[in-house]
């Protein structure tokens, strides 16, 4: 029996569930995969924020790769609700158990004044450059677009900052700010792989910029050739999505923590000592802060100065790479970031461990969201500044 298009849609609608735009809007962020089944050129002119494009013609062939788990809640939409009804029927037939189609489509969504955006689309070159990312269902073109739109501030272009900067630039993070007041020295090159022998004597931020734009011209580098201080930290840090801490002294780490609580920017933390590393994510008010973990800096006998400590060069490579990974997870909103967890690494034992960190309700820094800590200057020597310890 031959059917008209209208009859086919009516038949599909009888077998699927439809929701209105208001219902879909409430489900954004609850784990529902929002699929836009229009054509790419329609999608590029505007789509629901966070929706992923799988054109109707590629649905059957691509869905299993994009959404492997058939129990994933899926909300699908098109321009007016007809194509998405057919698409929802197909997904049900393929075994997807929780599929809904949005009645009225994107046209109704827009006319009801709901939030939408023009998705950042990748150029032809970018599609090739980032293809190993976009092949990952967890990233896709939408995730890559988020990376291209993200701003990350790296504190330090040294041991931890080098691998973090290289991988974040390679990943296509749109803006990388780099704070460092130092110049390249030959004793840096055993581990600081952003730099090279030709750059000895050059400010590290400039050397970093040369390396990074040669790796990926998509990335904008903002150089901050300065020492972080109470006077400049808020101005430097504001506007970034994530801060990657590759500093080398306690005063700076406490300062970054205080500023992150003001600006509510997550800080990816990394620290190294000889053969040992630590990494965590301090997400303001969602998890513990640095001061919840270490209420005050240790005395000198527990924290030798940078110069006397020594570090095996590969170690910051590993810990800095973990920091880059955590920053990318935060930007993409995927996986389980190291919030409330401290990863410790012992290179000689080849041992990773995870310790649980808790937010201290009495924490002098993050205990009261209405009153973030005052931004004060700490001892600016690369020595633990026990005298500046805050009292509760």
């Amino acid at each position, binding site marked *: 029996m031959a059917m008209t298009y209208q009859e086919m849609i009516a038949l599909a609608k009888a077998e699927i569930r439809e929701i209105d735009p208001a219902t879909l809007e409430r489900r954004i962020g609850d784990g529902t995969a929002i699929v836009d089944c229009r054509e790419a050129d329609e999608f590029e002119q505007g789509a629901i924020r966070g929706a992923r494009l799988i054109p109707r013609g590629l649905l059957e062939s691509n869905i299993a790769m994009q959404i492997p788990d058939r129990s994933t809640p899926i909300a699908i939409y098109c321009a007016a609700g007809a194509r998405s009804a057919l698409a929802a029927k197909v997904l049900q037939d393929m075994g997807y158990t929780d599929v809904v189609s949005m009645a009225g489509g994107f046209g109704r969504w827009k006319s009801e004044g709901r939030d939408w955006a023009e998705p950042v689309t990748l150029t032809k070159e970018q599609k090739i450059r980032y293809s190993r990312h976009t092949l990952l269902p967890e990233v896709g073109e939408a995730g890559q677009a988020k990376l291209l739109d993200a701003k990350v501030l790296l504190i*330090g272009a*040294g*041991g*931890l*900052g080098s691998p973090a900067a290289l991988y974040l630039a390679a990943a296509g993070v749109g803006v990388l700010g780099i704070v460092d007041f130092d110049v390249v020295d030959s004793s*840096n090159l055993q581990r*600081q792989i952003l730099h090279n022998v030709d750059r000895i004597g050059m400010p590290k931020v400039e050397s970093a910029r040369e390396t990074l734009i040669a790796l990926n011209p998509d990335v904008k580098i903002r150089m901050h050739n300065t020492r972080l201080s109470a006077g400049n930290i808020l101005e430097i840090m504001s506007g970034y999505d994530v801060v990657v*801490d*590759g*500093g*080398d*002294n*306690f005063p700076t*780490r406490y300062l970054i923590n205080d500023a992150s609580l003001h600006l509510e920017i997550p800080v990816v933390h*990394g*620290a*190294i*000592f*000889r*053969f*040992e590393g*630590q990494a965590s994510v301090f997400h303001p008010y969602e998890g513990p802060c640095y001061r919840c*973990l*270490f*209420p*005050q*800096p*240790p*005395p000198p006998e*527990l*924290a*030798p100065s*940078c110069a006397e*400590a020594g*570090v095996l060069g590969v170690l*910051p490579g590993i810990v800095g790479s973990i920091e880059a990974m955590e920053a990318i997870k935060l930007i993409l909103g995927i996986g389980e970031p190291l919030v409330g967890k*401290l990863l*410790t690494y*012992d290179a000689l*034992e080849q041992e990773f*461990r*995870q*310790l*649980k*960190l*808790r937010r*201290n309700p009495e924490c002098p820094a993050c205990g009261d969201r209405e009153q973030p800590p005052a931004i004060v200057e700490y001892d600016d020597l690369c020595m*633990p500044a026990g005298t500046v310890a805050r009292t509760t």
Partner: protein
Amino acid sequence: MTTINLPTILRQHTGGAKKITASGRTVGEVFAAIGSEYPKLGEQLTSPDGGLPIFVNVFLDDEDIRYLDGLDTVVDENADITILPAVAGGR
């Protein structure tokens, strides 16, 4: 016996050993036993007021003992203790 994992900075007090063992029913008792064998290490694990050490964190398995029963936290047979200092290095 409980195994205690030591960070690099404290291994100078144990002749370089990364892991030591000590007996005790609670974390406090384990620390007291450590103190009698390694007095210098013991000093880092006590505070002047007899409370928790100030500059290192103490984890029983993966839990911070500040959020358990502090030094009174009961140590079970298979648990291990990890001492965690703040580390600043990054360059």
